[in-house]
């Protein structure tokens, strides 16, 4: 049976994996993917907490019961928009630098 601990533990693992990816990956696409992983671990926390911590009557108090879920959907929407913008920037970077490697030399290439 699923419990809150299982969900939060999974979310924490996903988040740490995401941070690890963000900190270590040199490829900007991989960094993006790691970021997405972090977003989703947060989404998982939202939904899990919403489900377990606030067991209110779905009929009388629907809006309160759905707060976490709504947040998760908002995050997904914003993340999608952000990925669109972010990938655009990656394209532009690629055109300028000829690479999408993250390094301290970024912006110094001609």
């Amino acid at each position, binding site marked *: 049976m699923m419990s809150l601990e299982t969900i939060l533990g999974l979310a924490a693992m996903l988040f740490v994996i995401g*941070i690890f990816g*963000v*900190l*270590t990956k040199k490829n900007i696409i991989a960094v993006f993917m790691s970021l997405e992983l972090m977003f989703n671990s947060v989404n998982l926390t939202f939904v899990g907490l919403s489900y377990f911590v606030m067991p209110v009557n779905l009929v009388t108090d629907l809006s309160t019961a759905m707060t976490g879920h709504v947040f998760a959907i908002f995050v997904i929407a914003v993340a999608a928009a952000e990925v669109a913008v972010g990938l655009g920037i990656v394209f532009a970077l690629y055109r300028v630098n000829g690479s999408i490697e*993250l*390094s*301290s030399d*970024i912006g110094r290439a001609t």
Partner: protein
Amino acid sequence: MSSLTIWLVFLAPLTSFVIISLIVRPFFSKHQWISPYLLIAGLSVSLVVSVMLFLDTLYTGGPGYNSAYQWIKINDAAIIDLGTYIDPVSSTILLVVVVVSLLVQIYSMGYMHGDIGYSRYFATMALFTSSMIGLVISSNIVQLYAFWELVGLSSYLLIGFWTERPAAAAAAKKAFIITRIGDVGFLIGILFLINHSFALPLSANVNVLHIPDICSLAGTMSAMIVTIITLGILSGAMGKSAQFPFHTWLPDAMEGPTPVSALVHSATMVAAGVFLLVRLFPFISASDTTMLIIAGVGAFTAVFAATMGLVVNDIKRVLAYSSISQLAYMFAAIGLGAFGPAIFHLITHAFFKALLFLCSGSVNHATHTFDMREMGGLRKYMPWTYGLMLVSSLSLIGLPPLSGFWSKDEIMLSAWEKMLHGSVFEITIFALLAIGVVLTAFYTWRMISLTFHGEYRGNDVGDGHGDHSIHESPRVMIAPMALLGVATVLAGFLTNPPVNVGPIHKHWLNDFISSSIVFHHGHHAAEFSVLVAILSTVLGLIGLGIAVYYYKLSQNGKKEPLESMKGFYGLIYNKYYLDDLYENIIVRNILQKRIVNIIAFVDKYVVDGLGLFLGFAVKNVGHVLGLFQNGNVQFYTFVISLGGVIGLIILLMYTPGLGG
């Protein structure tokens, strides 16, 4: 007379200074000719006001004390206010300062013609004149001290006027530093006065910084404190008036333009020391020690400076030593209690010594040198200058009926009377003053002889047509000299005649000076003594005779008669080695090697060390911190995450129920 009118005498030349230095010099450099006219206009206003003040003081007692503005109140008995105090002493000196200054400025128009710093010269002269006037009319000793330093500053600027000459710069520095050493004593005296104000009872109702009050202050102090304060003031006066041992700056000050020497370094500024002592005479004379020192310093310097004047070849330096010597006569007179004759001699000396300097300037204008070995025979080419120089020289020697005779005679008379019922000290004073008269006559005639008699020895032969380049100075220079010549002849007898002459009362100037209320029991002029008059005249004639004898024999001054006295000649030619003592031994060895080295060590290792350590620390800390700014975004993110984790751990540790 309103307070504003009195201030006008000071403000008029000050306005000229402001206009010349802030408007004419920066914006109208093509119209520099206007500068002297501005200054002369300002001084004319001053002249009118000072004549009015003099007559007012003479006939109705004068405006006395006028306070303009209370500046700082230290306590009830020590208030620094800005005001004017016009009494017989200051109104007389004021008139002399303004008259001599005006004549010298007119002369300067000719002498400084074509100089690059024409406007700068007149601006500084205006600053000097207004400061000198301010000094004379000051009612508060702190105010006087401020003007005292301002004239010192303008003296510095004027000595170093020709900034491209290293000698002038060095002389300016020397004058400034040496007078400053004396001024430290003056400042200490003022501080002691302020300190005394705390000990005064509330009912005393005096202001210890107010000059007329200072004069009556001696009774409230212990004799020791009076001596300390008066010695401090004396040290300031000695520095300004170039008395031994502060005399070394004045001969070097001759590096400045000649009209400056005439006005600043003989007629007015150097006489400020004498003026200060007379102004505070009742206070000064309360200390017998100080009076003895003044008399002793005066009599000694009178002879000491005169001996150095015997062998100098620079015409202006002869006059400089002569100024020191004549100021010493005034000091001696003050030390003997005869402030009236001291002021009288100050006035006549201002006229004839200014004239002597202007004559030497006129000679320089023609020959372009001050070295008397390259002059000679100028009598033919410069009759006016020769005549005026002769008159002023004979006045300096003290031959009747010229002004110098009357004033020097009064000083000799005071010394004579002291000697008659005095001890060895008074006899020594008189003897020194008498020797001084002989020496004065000798060096004065030597100067006349080397400059004007004999044959011309210089190389300045002009355009090959003989000595045509040597010519009399222009009228603008001769006219003020002639006016000073008139003053030289008349100022003595008419201002202080020994007998009633028609409407002119006998000794009226002396009685007028003594009538100032601060001199409670004024000085009564000694009755004219034919014996002393004959004695001082004969002494002058002896010195004159010796000089005529020597400088006729060794025609053209090929060899100095004194050179036969090897040791003595070397001593006086090297100015008693005092410059060497001051500069090589005191400054280089004691100050520089010992004290300055310690200070330099502290400066290098403590002060600089601290600065260097701070710089080193900042640089290295910055270097270490700079490692974090490596431009790697992932590194930054790592640090942020680490911070977040650490923050979270701390938060959890202190959360009740979890860790805290």
